[in-house]
Structures are given as structure tokens and as C-alpha cells.
């Protein structure tokens, strides 16, 4: 199929008036002055409402006694497409398997949420959170303590009322 070219004919300068377009634009401006539609937020005093499926930085769930829920099964580093999770498993003094090292490089993370989806014990979650600023790049590798300290709400990977997004 040949490429069809449409030639736009512009009115020549001096042969057309821009008054109508100017008035149209000004009328919109005046309408907003009388009946404003507000889209900006007075952040940080006002906080935005995040979608329940918002996927932000991670958080590790903990047991009542403060131990991480993670059992170091190794599924999240396996499934992670960005290869940003480092995990070294071990055994604690009660004979439970637990993560000796659990680190997530939030810079490498693509926030796909597959770690949360694959976790058999619902330990690692992506969170509804976006305020991640730090003073140094090295602070973006979150270790286990940091992940356990995070207390923002976790993400619902799907809407419970509409699990198949229908």
C-alpha cells in the first residue's frame, strides 16, 4: 500500500483573524476562575490516595514474637525477573529455616510484585508507598531489618471483589 500524504493548507498570515481562538481560550480560563476543578494536592500536608494494587517498596511480615515470616525457600530470588533479591538461608536456634541474609536492591527492582505472588508463607510484600528518598544510593539496598521495620500497608495484587479483573 502506498503512503498517502495529506497536505495541510495553512491560512496565510494577515488573511485570517485569531480573535475567535483567543476568545475561546479565554472563556475556558474564566470558567476555571468561577468553577475551579482542583487536581493538585497540597502535598505533603495532603496525601494522595493510592490504588489498592499500587506496588511500592517491599516489606517483610513478622510473627508475633518479632521473627520474620520468611522461611528462606528461595522462590522469590528464583522468580525475580530483575534478579534483585539476595537470600542466604540457615537454621535458627529453634530448628526453623530462616533467612540469614535477605536483601532487596530497590534500584534494580521493577516492582512487578511476583515475589509477593510466589511467596508460600505470605512473608514478602510490595507496599502501598512511594516516599523512598534517601541521602545515598547505598541506602537503597534494603536488608532484612529494614524490610521488617517498614510499616506501610501492603499491596493487594488483585481486587478481592474482582479477582480476575473482569
Amino acid at each position, binding site marked *: 500500500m502506498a503512503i498517502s500524504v495529506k497536505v495541510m493548507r495553512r491560512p496565510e498570515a494577515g488573511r485570517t483573524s485569531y480573535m475567535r481562538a483567543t476568545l475561546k481560550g479565554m472563556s475556558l480560563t474564566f470558567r476555571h476562575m468561577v468553577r475551579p476543578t482542583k487536581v493538585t494536592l497540597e502535598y505533603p500536608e495532603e496525601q494522595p490516595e493510592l490504588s489498592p494494587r499500587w506496588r511500592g517498596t517491599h516489606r517483610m511480615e513478622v510473627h508475633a514474637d518479632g521473627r520474620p515470616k520468611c*522461611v*528462606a*525457600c*528461595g*522462590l522469590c530470588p*528464583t522468580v525475580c525477573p530483575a534478579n534483585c533479591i539476595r537470600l542466604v*538461608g*540457615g*537454621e535458627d536456634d529453634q*530448628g*526453623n*529455616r530462616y533467612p540469614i541474609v535477605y536483601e532487596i536492591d530497590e534500584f534494580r527492582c521493577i516492582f512487578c510484585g511476583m515475589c509477593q505472588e510466589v511467596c*508460600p*508463607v505470605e512473608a514478602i510484600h510490595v507496599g502501598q508507598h512511594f516516599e523512598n528518598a534517601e541521602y545515598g544510593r547505598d541506602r537503597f539496598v534494603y536488608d532484612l531489618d529494614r524490610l521488617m521495620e517498614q510499616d506501610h500497608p501492603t499491596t493487594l495484587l488483585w481486587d478481592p471483589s474482582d479477582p480476575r479483573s473482569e
Partner: protein
Amino acid sequence: MANNGRKAETVTLTIDGQEVTVPRGTSLLHAAESIGTEVPHYCYHPGLSAPAQCRICLVEVEGAPKLQPSCVTMAADGQVVHTDSPAAKRMRQGVLEFYLVNHPLDCPICDMSGECKLQDYVFDEGREQGRGREPKRVFGRDDFGGDVLYYGDRCVMCTRCVRFMDEVARDSRLTVVERGSRAVIDTFFDRGLDGAAFAGNVVDICPVGALVSKDFLHKARAWDLDHTPSICPNCSHGCNIELHTRDNLVQRLKPRENQEVNGHWMCDYGRANYEWLNRPGRLEAPAVGRGSDRRAADWREALELLFARLQAAEGDVALVGSATCSNEALAGLAALGEEVPGGAAGRVFRSPRAPDEVPLPGFPLLVRRRDLVPNSDGAGLLGFERAGNDDGQGGLEDVAEHGGVVIVLGDELADQGEDFGANASLFVYLGTFDSAAARNADFVLPITTFAEEEGTFVNAQGRVQRFQQGLRPPESARPAWLVLGALVAAFRGEKTPDSAPEAFARLAAAHPAFEGLTWEAVGDGGAALVAEAAHG
């Protein structure tokens, strides 16, 4: 199986609509395997007897009143077998459901996860949802001694471990106690697996995560490990093994089947001794100069300097080899000794030696040998003489004070003093680690360990066996066959061998004991040397 001469040697049967001819006496399970159909099985293991008790290998044989256990049913002429018929499938689903009645389904924390047969079969054919409502019985875990932990809840009661200890190790230390759903594997009173020389194999043959290795516990997931065919470096029997590596570290050693050498097994001594391959602090860059004059150099400069020094060297050459080095490296060292103008004064190697051999009674070919190094026989064939005591020490008094050229390959010289080689006109040290005794060396050249290169060993049976590269070597370390091969090639004015097969070809051409062997012929399974040359 007996063949009385009247019957044909082979039988022809039909499995899943495919005609297959197998030798008489082949089980249906093996016959199916020969056409690429895996019949699930737990209790059957090719190295053990077949009690047909796990009931998962049942297949439909037309004309038989019931499903037949394929591990003990022999193939017969005209049989029509269905491994995947609705009846066989329904039965397998039922058996798997029974196995899961008390199984804790703790795959996330189970070390076997990823290589577990129960996981595989249930994933393939099991029910999507369990129907059990009763609580599962709980045993917890039991320390069997040695390197073995037992998780009773995960056990499928195949009794492979019990039969291994009875039939192969011939040291009955495990048994089934109780019956029915209360049945567990246990040791006899407080006599566990401690001190049993081959008990680690029960971990390998356990089809589920019931028997796990303490050493490997929680260390790595099965799917993260890279498997490299190799040769066990811990005795001169040279069991065929796989290096299981992750993050450039050896995580565990597993036996690799070779019926000529080790069957399906390996000893616990060999299995446990791999940490030395992960030892940090390696020599990383070539260095030239004695004592305080030592400076780093790149390979080209170091080899050019060394070649010039060797050409002008005074006195004869004392060579110290190492029985942990490959044949290619040792042959390169021997050839270099001949090329240096002064000629060779002597070739020695040292090796630790155990007080006795440890045989595996049920598989007589496999013996933990006295020489606790992989290539003492290869070193012997290549003209090196064993020196020193049974701890692998001493025996280098002459070399230490040798006035000519001293070339040390691989040996760490840990027992030697700082004045080692002080009188030498030229002292070259090719090693993996620095050592106090290398202080007087004019050249310190970093080489790779056997896990970081390709090559061959000769085992105590006179068998040449190949190992492959499983680890990435440190920065500038090079295989010893390459370093020595480059020097020899410089003397002879030929091309440097560019690969281990090339180095092996030159070795085979130079040494009559290796005559006729090629890299391809050695293959993954190894090849025997000409007998009289090997043991002459």
C-alpha cells in the same frame, strides 16, 4: 538371568503402542526407559534389590488379572503393556494420594525441593486439591549420626536406605520400626550412622526429603546449583562425581554413575572434603624476583623472563610435582625438565596416605584407597617418584638444598622452611597458594585447581578419567598445562597447546603408557590404560 539356550536372547513386546526389543530378563521399567518412558518408582533403585513395595510403578499388562509392578515384572515376548492407560493412571493417582496423607507438604523448607520425586510425580499426575480432613501425624526429625538427618514426616517408606545399608554397605544400621502409618526408619538404639564409611549415599538415594545432609542443610536450593561432571579428588580411586556449584563455590559433591568405577556410590570421606576448593586467599597474579625484590608482572613478561632464565640456567633440574595436578600438567612439567639444558635431576611428588583401605562390600570395585590424592598413579606413570611420609610431608631435603634449577608444581610446601630453595640457581613455584617456602622463588606463577580447569587423572585401577571445569578461576590464574606447555613449546619452537585436549594429545604421544588414547575415547566414562603399562 539364566538362558538355557533354547530361548532367544531377546524378547519383543509392545509398550504404549510402541514395539521394543530388549534382552531377556529386562524389567518392564527398564524396557519402558529404553523408549524414553519413565515409569514412576520409589522403592526400585538400579543399585539395589527390588521389593516392589512402593506400588507406584504398577502398569497394565494385557491379559494379567491385575496391574503389575513394572520393576519386578520381566519383559516377555508378545506382551502388550500400557503405562499410561486410564487404569494405570487412576492407580498412580490413588497411590500418590495415600503418600500425601501424612506428608507435611513443607516443600518451601525442604532441602530436596526441586529434585524430589514425590514433588515431581504429584505435580505431573496428582490431585489438585487434597481431600484429607484428619490431622497429619507428626514425627519431627531425628539425627541419624554421621552427616544424615531424618525427617520422618516426609518419608515414603521406600526402604532404599535400609536396603542400601543391608545390601551394599553390609552394615545393617537402619531398619523400619512400627507398622502402618506409624512406621518410621530408625537406627538401632543409640548406634547411629556414626563411623559408617558409606552412609552418605542414603541421602542420594532417598527419593524424597526424608534423609538430608547436615552439611548441605539449607545451604542452597537444588535448582540454583550447576552440575559439572568431575572426578573425586580425595583418593586415588577417582570416583566419578558431579560438582554442585553456586556463586562460584562448591556446595556439595554427588556421585555420578559409572559401573566400571564407583557404581552409583561414593564414600563419605570423599563427599565431605570439598571445602579446600573454596578456600580464599589464592595467588592471583604472576610475580618475579626473590624476597624483597619481588614484584608483580603480567604473564607475557613473566614467561619471557622465565624462558630466558631457563635457557641460561646452570645445573640440573629438580622437579617437584603434585598428585593433585592433572596428567597434562605433570607431563608438561616432565617435558620442561627434559628441555632445560642441565637435564633432569629427579622428579618427586608427595601425597598423604591413609593407614588402610576402606572397601564397599556390596560393590567390590569401589574402595576408598590409601592414597588420599587423585592422581598418584598418573604421577607414577609420568616418571615421578613418591617421596615423604604418610602425612604428605618431608622427603624434599635434597630439593630444598639443590644447587641447580628447582621447579615446584602445585605442592604447597607448607612443611618446608623459609630457606627452601635458597641455593637454587633458579627456583620456580607454580602454585595455588603462597607459601613461606616460596620466599626464595624467582618466579611465582598462579595456577588453577582441578575444579577450575579441564584435564585427566589416572585412578588406582589404571583408568584415565576426565574432569570438567566447574569453577571460575581467580583473576590471572592459568591452568598449569598451559603455563608449562607454553614454556616447552618455546624450547621446541612449536605452537603452545591451546586446549586441554591438545595438551592430552601431546601427552599421549610422548608417554607410551597413554598410547592410543584420545580425549574423545576417554569421554565422560573414562578409559582403561594398557594394562601392563599401567601396572608394570
